[in-house]
Structure formats: C-alpha cells, structure tokens
C-alpha cells in the first residue's frame, strides 16, 4: 500500500492505495466517482476517459500511484466547467446519447475537440471520435451535438 495525494474535482485527497490499482478503480471504488465507466480495460473503447492535468486520458491503464500530485476532473466535478455544461445541453438537444454508458467520456473527448480544434469540420470531429466507442447512437447525434457547440463558440468567438 502507498500513500498518494491527488486533487480530485478541486479537492485535495490523500489516500492509501495498492500500486496495482488503476486510477479508474481508485476513483470509482474509493471515491465513488462512478461516472467513470470501464469497458475494455486496455485503452481501446474510451469509456474511462477523464481529465488529468487538463487533458483527456484513459484512466483504466494508468495506476493511481503514478498520478500522484495530478489534478483530476471527472464528470461529477464538471458542473462548473462551462464547456462541459454547453456540451451536455447540446448532447440532450441533438440526441447525443441513448444508454449513456459512453457519455461522460464522450463529453471529455468532445471538450478536447472544441477547445483544441476550434476550426474542426465534421470529418475531423468524426476522426477525433474514433477513440470513443458508442454502440447506440451511430454517432450522428454526437457529431451534430459537437458541431453545434463548435458553431456556437465560433459565433461567440470563444
């Protein structure tokens, strides 16, 4: 067991974890942040994507101890993140989800697209979404939702 300190959704947390515990398992099981979802557990499906130090990463293939000192943002701590809030509204409006399993991670990837690639067109959005699997929507609603936020941000010059 090892002591690890992380800033989780703005709160500094020191916890004791086994080195083999992944960041996803630590956050889900010790912190009850169950908006993190596990699919493949080898980095392919994207369902566990959260923000570490401001960037989307796979939490299923990182060990919690190796993230000591990092700032973590999960969907539970995103109500004050205006980009996530705008994306959530857009996902609702454009039918960007059905079962919801992929959604929290999809929102973080969408956040990365609209902030890092403000000029992205639909093809680019689809390319960037290749790392997040959705088995309900066929992606059409997700792509529309992200495009709508991109247009909105361009109009507002954000």
């Amino acid at each position: 067991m090892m002591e690890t300190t992380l800033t989780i959704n703005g709160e500094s947390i020191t916890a004791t974890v086994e080195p083999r515990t992944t960041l996803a398992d630590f956050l889900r099981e010790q912190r009850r942040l169950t908006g993190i979802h596990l699919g493949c557990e080898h980095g392919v499906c994207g369902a566990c994507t959260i923000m570490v130090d401001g960037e989307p990463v796979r939490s299923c293939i990182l060990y919690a101890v190796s993230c000591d000192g990092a700032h973590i943002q999960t969907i539970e701590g995103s109500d004050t993140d205006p980009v996530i809030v705008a994306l959530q509204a857009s996902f609702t409006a454009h039918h960007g989800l059905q079962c919801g399993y992929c959604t929290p991670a999809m929102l973080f990837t969408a956040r990365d697209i609209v902030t890092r690639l403000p000029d992205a067109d639909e093809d680019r959005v689809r390319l960037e979404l290749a790392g997040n699997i959705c088995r309900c929507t066929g992606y059409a609603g997700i792509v529309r939702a992200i495009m709508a936020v991109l247009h909105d941000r361009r109009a507002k010059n954000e």
Partner: protein
Amino acid sequence: MKAAKFDYTKTNDVAEALSVLTAEDGDSKVLAGSQSLGPMMNLRLARPDRLIDIRALDALKAVTQAPDHLFVGALVTHAAIEDGILPDVTRGMIQHVAAGIAYRAVRNRGTIGGSLVHADPAGDWPAALRALGAQIVIDGPAGTREAAIDTFQLGAFTVALEEDEIVRGVRVPALSGSARWGYHKICRKPGEFAESIGAYVCDPESGIARLVLAATEDAPLQLDTAAAAIAQNDGAKFDLDAARMALTETGETFDPFKLRMHAVALHRAVAQAYGA
C-alpha cells in the same frame, strides 16, 4: 482484467532508476506513459514484480537541436510532437506520424521512448524512425551509448536493450530542403494498430534513401535496393508491380492478401513522397 501485484518506485534520478532495475529480487520494468505496459499488465501478458516510474526523470524530457539532428528525449509524448512544439527537422514527417498514433487521450501520455522499447511490429515510431535512420541514446551503469535503429529492434516486442539500461532519447537526423518523405498506414479504423505501414525517406543531399515496411509479424523490414532505385528514378517507376516485386525480393514470404496490402502501403508512401 486487472494487473497482478507489483511494487512501485518513483524516482527523479537516472542513477537511482538504473540501480532499481538491477535489483536482484524479481524482475523490474520501467513505466513511462503506461499506454502499452498498462494494457499488457491488465491482460496479464506482463507481470513485472516491480515498476520504476520514470516520468519524473527530467534528463529524459530534453529536446535539443544540433546542426545535423534533433535529440528528442524518451519521455516526449506523441501529443507534444503532434502539436509541433518541437523544432521541425524532418519537414513535418514526425509531426504527421505522431498525429496518426492511436487517439488523442493515448497520445497525451504515450512516449516516443516507450514506443521504441515496446517494439510492437505495428508501432509507428519503430517504422518511421527506421526510415529516418535515427540513433537511440541509451543510459546504462557504464554510461551512455548509442545504437543505430537498424540493429535496435530484434523482432516483435524485442529490442537490443540490456535489463539494466534505459533509453534516454533518440537522435532524429535533420533532412535537407530537398528531402522527401511518405508515410502510409492501412488501418480499418483510424487510430487502430495498422495492418500495414509503408515509410519512405529520401534525401539527395546526404544520399540517403530508405524504404521500410512495418506491421508484419517481425521487426520493420528495410528494402534498400528498392529505395535506391526509387530515389534514382524520382519515384517514377515504382508502381504496384514494382512494389510487389521489391517485397518478393526480400526473400520473406507473404500470403497473397498481405502481399497485396503491403505493396499498396509501400506504393502509397512513395507516391506521397513524390506528390503523385
């Protein structure tokens, strides 16, 4: 699945990392971005007794430019290279390659050094840096040594690195203004490991011409005779038949489907280099 039990050490000192690697009890592995080792350990294809986290080793994060090359520290991420924050000495080649590796969330953590040492037959850096003729800089108990990439990867997931050595970084040769490159991956889905990779680099100023095929079941394959002919003819005669012929001449055997796919990857890489 979940990883088996292991001990974990983090250090910001290269000498300490090397000494932990040589510890006698059990086998130790270094942990960089965790983007290959993480999956391997979750699947229990790897079960090291001890991990030495090297992400705090500043010596492995350096990026330095010399007249004839760019040194890229082992811990530099694919995302950093994709974003073009490194000086461009390859006329955009390494930036292009980085952007095509996996997905952004993976590129944010995965490192160039980790990719070289993991040595996946379909890995992008082993293929691209082979075409560029890079040099690997390695730290060990006796000091620092350099190895040509041509002899570094011995096979699938196997490299010529001693148990007590770590990769410090890689020297990427600078291309001249008249150099050309092409890099083509065949994937069913963007970001997936490729089914075939063709890479071509030619620099008339230094006389270098390298054609590389990767995503076979082995280390990348270098097709020197074909590369020399392509450079001489400015790519003109390298059609699909020529690509197939070049593959057959390597003496390797490919089934008809693979042969066709590899020929297409090589052909498209060369066509890209000559703007065709």
